[in-house]
């Protein structure tokens, strides 16, 4: 579910930094042209200004789609959602997806959190798919005593 | 360096490991367990660089004993994973210290309270392990058993070990896998060393 308006970008619009700098903004709302040495020296810029904005990732997704790379485009759309997630939380979620790191309910909760807290339905879908496969392949965390005795696989 | 082509040579010293019963948890605080892999001194008799398993054991035992520490040998039969072998040995060791070793020579010093995938010292490059190194590994394990913090045995590195030994190591690993006896617990073994005539 990609809510960004389609800008009709095609392969000919790449690279955006050369052909369409006017479309590029930092997550803090500055135009990319504001990222100058003067601004660095005067202390106007912070590390936040050197991050990619979700809109930019959706534009890159369009370019990937236009170049016949649907999987790459999907990756960019998941990434667009993830821009809202703090660094430490991203790492924690990654660790939660490792084999036998999370129980079924924990993964369900993670998916839920991605959807509600971070408006990240595509990422949530990936986590739900993982949970289903992990259950079938015995890759969920062994349930702690007392929790969900029905979670055993086939 | 000229190495004449040969067929496989016979080791001068041999060892037979006789099973004496299921391995149990040691009661002496001053012991080190040597845990050998399924094919060690059995299906295989030498490391990847032809150090006889008899010499490996003799040197490890000598290194342990020179520190005034007792040694016990067990064979782990249900896995060829060095970390698992070493950790199994560590949990059975009265001191909690174990030297685990694979047939090809790869060696690890483990401690029972560490995570299975962790270790005290790891010697991953089996082609670089010779008798003096095994003796030092034994001595270090014994010092850990006494609660000391020995200087780790210096690990050597050889850029060209990969082209020379990587595939043979993989092959030896596969063979060791074939000797795994699933579901069978570790056993205590008694070594009997013998000098074979070289002719």
């Amino acid at each position, binding site marked *: 579910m990609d809510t960004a308006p389609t800008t009709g970008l095609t*392969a000919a619009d790449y*690279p955006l930094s050369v052909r369409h700098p006017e479309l590029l903004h930092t997550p803090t709302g500055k135009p990319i042209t504001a*990222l100058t040495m003067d601004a660095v020296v005067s202390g106007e810029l912070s590390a936040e200004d050197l991050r990619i904005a979700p809109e930019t990732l959706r534009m890159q997704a369009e370019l990937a789609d236009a170049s016949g790379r649907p999987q*790459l485009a999907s*990756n960019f759309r998941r990434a667009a959602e993830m821009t809202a997630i703090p660094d430490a939380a991203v790492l924690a979620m990654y660790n939660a997806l490792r084999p036998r790191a999370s129980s079924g309910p924990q993964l369900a909760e993670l998916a839920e959190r991605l959807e509600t807290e971070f408006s990240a339905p595509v990422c949530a879908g990936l986590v739900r798919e993982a949970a289903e*496969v992990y259950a079938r392949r015995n890759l969920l965390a062994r349930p702690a005593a007392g929790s969900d005795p029905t979670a055993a696989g086939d | 360096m000229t190495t004449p082509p040969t067929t496989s040579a016979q080791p001068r010293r041999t060892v037979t490991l006789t099973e004496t019963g299921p391995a149990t948890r040691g009661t002496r605080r001053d012991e080190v367990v040597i845990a050998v892999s399924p094919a060690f001194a059995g299906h295989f008799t030498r490391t990847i660089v*032809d150090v006889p398993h008899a010499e490996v054991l003799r040197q490890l035992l000598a290194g342990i004993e020179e520190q005034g520490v007792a040694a016990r040998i067990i064979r782990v039969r249900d896995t060829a994973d060095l970390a698992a072998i070493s950790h199994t040995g560590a949990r059975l060791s009265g001191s909690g210290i174990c030297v685990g070793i694979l047939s090809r020579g790869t060696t690890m010093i483990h401690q029972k309270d560490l995570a299975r995938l962790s270790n005290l010292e790891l010697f991953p490059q089996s082609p670089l392990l010779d008798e003096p190194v095994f003796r030092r590994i034994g001595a270090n394990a014994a010092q850990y058993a006494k609660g000391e913090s020995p200087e780790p045995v210096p690990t050597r590195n050889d850029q060209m070990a990969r082209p*020379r030994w990587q595939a*043979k190591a*993989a092959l030896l690993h596969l063979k060791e896998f074939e000797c795994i006896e699933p579901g069978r617990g570790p056993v205590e073994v008694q070594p009997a060393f013998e000098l074979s005539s070289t002719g």
Partner: protein
Amino acid sequence: MTETQPRRDPQPRHSLRTEILEARPMNLDGFVEEWPEKGLVAMESDFDPAPSVRVEDGRIVELDGRARADFDFMDTFIANHAIDVASAERCTSMPSAQIARMLIDPGASRDEVLAVTRGLTPAKILDVVKLMNVVEIMQGMQKMRARRTPANQGHSTSARDNPIQVAADAAEGALRGFAELETTLGVLRYAPLVAIALQVGAQVGRGGVLTQCALEEATELELGMRGITAYAETISIYGTESVFIDGDDTPWSKAFLASAYASRGIKMRFTSGTGSEVQMGNAEGKSMLYLEIRCILMAKGAGVQGLQNGSISCIGVPGAVPGGLRAVAAENLVASMVDLECASGNDQSFSHSAMRRTARAMPQLLPGTDFVCSGYSAVPNPDNMFAGSNFDTEDYDDWNTIQRDLQVDGGLRHVREDEILQARNKAARALQTLFAQLDLPAITDQEVEAATYANSSNDYPLRDVLTDLKGAQAVMDRGLTGLDLVRGLEAGGFHDVAENLLTVLRQRVSGDLLQTSAVLTADFTPLSAINDANDYAGPGTGYRLAGERWEQLKKLRHVTSATNPETEVR
């Protein structure tokens, strides 16, 4: 020689010729017989599955002879994400010979081939490349490489983790032509200082070179997020479920990680290679290439833009079995023919034989790949903390000459010594100034002088390691970022270097480097498979080594002048 010599009994007399042959470095390499039942076989195994695919209700329900209920997680991920469901049955039922012929036929465009390969199963892809000999594999690579212009990647590391050395060798490497530079550590805690040194050295040598620091996943991502490194590559994937789990990951955790990198604007590729599964004892009886094709499709399904493959750290395994290097060439081709950027190996010590080392690289160097080496050692091999590469600094002139002899572009060029000394000196001074600006451990003038003329880490004054490690920790504790590096360089008077680095950092705001096979040119234009798409269509088309670039590559250390044969061309 540090190895323990095998014991040998007295032997019968040998001929003098046998003795000479035995003494050749070649015979220090190890070779083994195949064992297909255990997966110790390159690409021709009776135990690999036959291709098949069945689609029901828009979903793949059978893959290479296995029903969905029996899929392991690789099958599931590939069926769900990598294969184009709409064309899967049609493409997989095409005769393999027809697809193989398309790969080498200049009349079939790259896009036409991609329209077929996107619907192929792993076993079908194996079936196709099994029909191809090495020359055909190279022909396929020439057309299927994603980026039109080939490039190369270098390693800049130090046996002592000396940041000044890493900076100087990065500068020289960048000047010589590497589009990407990678480092790693002996002592991991040194990482922040060495990663900074790599970045500074690279931007001195040639603005726009991309850098990375190979570490465990979390730290590597953190350095990237801070803008100290520009891309990442050591994200390993494996071809069997059991080995993947041993690596403490799944296709879903890795796919999540891929998006995490993109969400920070950081270029990233996965790493895999033939031999890793059998080396870890869990090849499940499948050939090395079949398992690698599963990795390639997993990477494709994750939506990562590229892959480092070509056996990589397991090269000793395929290198030891018959046809092993053909399989390695084929795995690079498969990455390219499913439209991934391919950083094609040649990055680990491979052979004692110089002839064999060269032969190993031909299937990548001749057709050209996105990165011919995914790590040519830009330091002497004893300083290479990736355990040595197939080529190192001693091979620079040989590499340049081979490029000139065969008129192929391997991404490097000969550079005059005065230019190199200047770049090395400037890199060391820039780092000296930056460390002073950031209150990091001091670099002496003596060290700068050493860096200018050094060959290896032995040629530098020893650093105070404990002080350095404290400084490295301070980089993390103080939360220093790429922006602090820019500021420090600017304040220290290295305006051009600061500007180069800022331009690289600015790129992550645009996301242009996230597209397939992207690099930055010397004028900071992102060059990727979109705006530099490989348009090979037979003789006279595609990338040709010509014009200004060819003039560059004609230069060597010693070329007698035609104008005045008593002098050499400068």
